[in-house]
């Protein structure tokens, strides 16, 4: 300290024995017009901020921002984990089950607020990355951290005068008054935080820990996934199988298999018998004709035309069928038309898989109505 120069003076400090004394001293120092002074106590002293005429602390705003940050990050992170990264059905609840997020988000909010506020304090007070303060490691601060209360007026205060401040503290009843100097070595000390050796060590530790964790969890303690329900020795639709000579997993039913409650079409390749034995089970009621019209317009009209005249909408991309209103078709029994719809004829494919049996009979009733419209009886006009 004796080597210290006058321009290296940081502050004059005074020590007091009781919180009341330092509270009084702070009030008086403020009244005397000093602006750059600070009070140091081993524990919070009630009323100090008002005695020093401090403005409302900004720490609340900082804490609020940090807390908000923590809350938002927590909610986003949990949402991402539970919806996107690792969706698990828990208790049949939706993936985004916000009530389950609340406790964790709350904890993260508290954690972020406290940790970030502390870090912000370190950054602001110690001027990160520097971690030295002139008051640190002085007899003054050592007394404060045991049982004394102190006040320090900084040398850069516009009203500062070394002798005046010393006298002022003495008049307030301070028994220990001492100057505190900057230590030049501290001022331009490179913070140990950025020492390449330290950073290298940090990197090695980080890599080792990550690798150890990876190998422990993924290699040494590896457990096969519990997928006994999901993975079963059975074939699913469209899967190949080497078990069968053709390599197809999906097996067609044995020839001659009949579906339950379903009678196969008995007149395959026998149009005459179909015309002879099949009888339309439907009557041309309003419902049947409406149904027939709907199905006709959907499945038949693209080629046969809306009125069955054979005027296709397909603009020559497909051969035009003959008209359904001809005498030939009019003379056919219903069973023959049914057979054509079921099996197809010439260029027309089978419609058995698209149009249900009942709908086919309804379409036939509708075709009969179209034919009757072109060849009306005298009595129809009455």
């Amino acid at each position: 300290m004796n080597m210290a120069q006058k321009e290296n003076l940081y502050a004059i400090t005074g020590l007091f024995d009781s919180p009341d004394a330092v509270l009084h001293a702070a009030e008086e120092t403020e009244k005397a017009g000093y602006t750059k002074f600070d009070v140091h106590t081993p524990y919070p002293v009630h009323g100090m901020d008002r005695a020093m005429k401090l403005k409302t602390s900004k720490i609340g705003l900082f804490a609020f921002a940090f807390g908000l940050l923590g809350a938002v990050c927590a909610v986003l992170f949990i949402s991402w984990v539970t919806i996107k990264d690792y969706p698990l059905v828990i208790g049949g609840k939706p993936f985004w089950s916000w009530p389950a997020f609340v406790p964790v988000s709350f904890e993260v909010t508290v954690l972020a607020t406290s940790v970030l506020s502390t870090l912000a304090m370190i950054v602001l007070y110690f001027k990160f990355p520097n971690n030295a303060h002139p008051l640190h490691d002085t007899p003054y601060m050592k007394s404060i951290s045991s049982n004394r209360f102190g006040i320090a007026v900084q040398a850069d205060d516009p009203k500062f005068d070394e002798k005046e401040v010393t006298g002022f503290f003495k008049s307030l009843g301070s028994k220990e008054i001492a100057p505190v100097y900057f230590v030049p070595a501290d001022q331009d000390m490179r913070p140990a935080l950025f020492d390449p050796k330290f950073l290298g060590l940090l990197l090695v530790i980080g890599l080792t820990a990550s690798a150890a964790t990876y190998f422990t969890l993924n290699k040494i303690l590896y457990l096969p996934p519990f997928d006994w329900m999901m993975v079963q020795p059975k074939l699913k639709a469209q899967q190949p199988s080497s078990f069968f000579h053709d390599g197809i997993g999906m097996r067609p039913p044995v020839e001659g298999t009949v579906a339950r409650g379903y009678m196969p079409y008995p007149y395959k390749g026998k149009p005459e018998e179909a015309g002879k034995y099949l009888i339309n089970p439907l009557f041309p009621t309003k419902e049947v004709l409406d149904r027939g019209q709907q199905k006709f317009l959907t499945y038949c009209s693209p080629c046969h035309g809306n009125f069955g005249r054979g005027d296709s909408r397909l603009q020559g991309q497909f051969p035009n069928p003959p008209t359904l209103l001809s005498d030939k078709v009019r003379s056919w029994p219903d069973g023959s038309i049914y057979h054509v719809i079921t099996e197809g004829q010439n260029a027309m494919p089978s419609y058995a898989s698209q149009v249900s049996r009942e709908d086919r009979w309804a379409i036939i009733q509708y075709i009969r109505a179209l034919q009757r419209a072109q060849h009306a009886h005298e009595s129809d006009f009455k």
Partner: protein
Amino acid sequence: MEHIERTQIKVSPKNRLIGWGLVWLGVALCSLGYIVDAREAAFNNVLNFLFLAGIGIGALFFLALEYVTGAVWSVPIRRVNEFLAWLVPFAALLAIPILFNLDTVFAWAQKDIAASDALLRMKEPYLNRSFFILRFFGIFIVWIMFIRLLTRNSTRQDATGDQRLTKINTILSAIFMPVFALTLTIFAVDWGMSLDPHWYSTIYGIYFFSGTATASLAALTLVTAVLYERGFFPKLRRDHFYNLGALLFTFVNFWAYIAFSQFMLVWYANLPEETSWFIARWHGGWEYISIVLILVQFAVPYFVLLPQEAKMNIRTLRRMAVWLLFAHALDLYWLIMPAFSATPPLGWMEISFPILIAGVVLIVLGWQVQNLSLVPVGDPKLKRGLEFRL
């Protein structure tokens, strides 16, 4: 020690008339309610009985808390708590009409339902008329006994300044604390939870406590702030009000914490016998009440009371106290009324009981501020309490 004068307030005849007017208007409306629709009146009666009893017993809790913790800052305003605690016997009077109408409110009190329901038959040893009424009188006798002892010692100290009385009150308060926890839980289960006798929640007692504690703290803040603004507490500082504000803020959070804990556990377990209670509060218009309750009882007061300045601003605190008293009434409405109707009821009956309660509070407080000192002048901690600084 400097001498602190007794402060007594002269209640003007006009104010006394307002108080009695409200009481008689309330009595008339409530009686009319019982004649028109005894069921709705009885449910409203339960709601307002719990409100008044809760504020009173909450005040006694904070009174005991002061003695147990040796708090200093609250000594100058302790009398307000003592005044509020005396609402408890009047709340007990308010419960008498319900005791005569138990079967209109409580399903377990109806003979045919209780006999045909297997669960209610098993709960019969606890949920039956005579034991219920016995518990009611037992709890209120214990409460009134503690109120009488604590306030009598406190007022006696005004004249004598005897420090031993503080010691005696501290011991009494320490005894009261576990008694309070037990009696308030039984009280909440009896009058709130048993409205839906199949349903149960082990956190119900503390949920009720969190609401009543917030409300009685709001009542304390409101009365203190109003008296301060009229100049009856000249020596109070912003620091005292900051503490009230901080406590209000704490209990607003505490309520939200407990309410959410109750909800989350039921939601997570998803058991039909537990979820039915929340399902009833999420249909038929109750869902809006549920959402509004979260906003009114938690979100709004949280953000209003969050800044430090708000906790020191007496006008903000006074408004927030009124707000939170309303919030607690809404909380009780949400707790009780779904047992009455599947849609939120609102009519003249929902207003008539609060009129009666307002009158009772005015009369009880007015009578006490006129006859007792507003400041406990004999308390050895008073001077330090007045010098309290943050």
